[in-house]
């Protein structure tokens, strides 16, 4: 049964998975070009000053900020809008499988695809930065991008939560809370701005449970 759910989620997400992977490759290729251009243009010493002092690299890889966010949002929409359109979720709820298992499997598989995209981007970035910079810079860049990856994960779970919620008023309230929560992760534009990262990891870890709450309200017939 879990294989069937994976199959269904794959049907919904497959084109998005391929397109996002393609965008990731293009974005990484673009950053290789940008990094080489700055090194050539500024010279190694000036570039080093900018990279360390002005967090230049973070500004050159703005797509890393945007891609996980967009991917989380798109995956959430593609998976759950079709389920909620015309109350199609009722079909899923009638399947002979425990409802909590069904919901957790749906978000679990969706997140698995998101995580694959995030890891692809993360290791791609590591590869790109390591082509021109030493380990200290690589570590700074990668650690600084972690809140963005985490923000993408949060956006995915909260998008699923908001779409599954049957009441529009509640959706609106959740939307505002989501914005506030996710925006915190995207404020930093310099290195090492990830204070409280572990707290947010814990928050994201419990987010799948919000889907159970919204699913339960839908099941009860809440309007």
């Amino acid at each position, binding site marked *: *049964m879990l*294989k*069937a759910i994976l*199959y*269904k989620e794959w*049907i*919904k997400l497959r084109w998005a998975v391929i397109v996002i992977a393609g965008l990731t490759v293009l974005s990484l290729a673009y950053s290789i070009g940008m990094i080489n251009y700055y090194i050539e243009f500024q010279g190694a010493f000036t570039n080093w000053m900018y990279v360390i002092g002005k967090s230049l690299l973070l500004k050159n890889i703005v797509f890393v900020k945007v891609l996980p966010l967009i991917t989380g949002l798109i995956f959430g929409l593609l998976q759950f809008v*079709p389920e909620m359109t*015309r*109350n*199609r979720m*009722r*079909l899923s*709820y*009638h*399947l*002979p*499988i*425990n409802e909590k298992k069904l919901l957790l499997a749906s978000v679990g598989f969706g997140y698995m695809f998101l995580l694959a995209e995030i890891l692809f981007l993360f290791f791609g970035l590591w590869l790109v930065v390591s082509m021109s910079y030493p380990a200290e810079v690589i570590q700074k860049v990668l650690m600084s991008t972690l809140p963005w990856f985490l923000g993408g994960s949060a956006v995915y779970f909260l998008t699923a939560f908001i779409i599954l919620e049957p009441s529009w008023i509640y959706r609106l309230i959740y939307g505002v809370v989501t914005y506030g929560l996710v925006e915190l992760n995207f404020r930093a534009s310099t290195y090492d701005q990830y204070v409280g990262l572990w707290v947010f990891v814990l928050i994201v870890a419990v987010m799948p449970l919000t889907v159970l709450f919204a699913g339960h309200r839908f*099941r*009860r*017939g809440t309007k």
Partner: protein
Amino acid sequence: MEHVIECKNLTHYYGDKLVLNDLNLSVEKGRIFGILGKNGMGKTTTINILMGFLRPTSGQCLVFGEESHKLSPATRQKIGLLHEGHLAYDFMTIRQVENFYSRFFPNWKADYYWDLMGKLGLSDNHKIKNMSCGQRSQVVLGLIFAQDPELLILDDYSMGLDPGYRALFIDYLQEYVREKNKTVFLTSHIIQDVEKVVDDTIIMGHQKLLLKMPLVALKEGFHRYEFRNQNAIGHIAADDKVVTNVEYVNDKVTLYSFKSLNDIKAHLKSLGISVSEIAEIPMTLEEAFIGLTGKY
């Protein structure tokens, strides 16, 4: 007799609005039930409770002995649901949807599905969202048949179907149900179709069950009588244990009743209404339905 569905003292409110009031209903195994009711009589609410998508304010609804809003996966496996509007995973193709559902049902009978799909003449890669309502209804019916459920709940199966697809749906349903001795609980706005397929009718009035009886008994036992008498206008009460419903048009009086012609004559006499000529007018199920529930 074994009951597949049993609703006891079902009451439901939407906010302050009472929709169902102390409804009692049971569905016996191996029979085909048609639930009829005008809009706003609580038919959809009853179906939603029965399907487990609404928790009643009070009372309970048991399906295979389990409360309908918390059916176990094993019990859900025994129920084939057709949702209003022939709801389907329309982002899937004909093949994908069969592939998906077949993994949930151990007794999956793929032949039923592919037999129906063969008649559509569409490619296996045809997306459900690109189908007409009629074609989609065949996909949904094929999936329910392949599931081989013990109970079929079909919510407004005729909605959006043209006469051809309605006839096709009914033909296949009749064949399948008779052959396999299934229990069916269906609703439809097309009463002529219901008449062709059901064994028992359940008619819902305002917030309550008006009657539940075999279709044959309803057709034989429920009568329509007409006579003309200006003096009778406004003097016959409906629902007085003899007359179920009464309509007046000018001096024409139409009575609906489960009583015989002689009983009606005696009743009119007791009310002081003299009638020289009274006739029984045969009815279709649709006319009987209107007679029971009223035109307004």
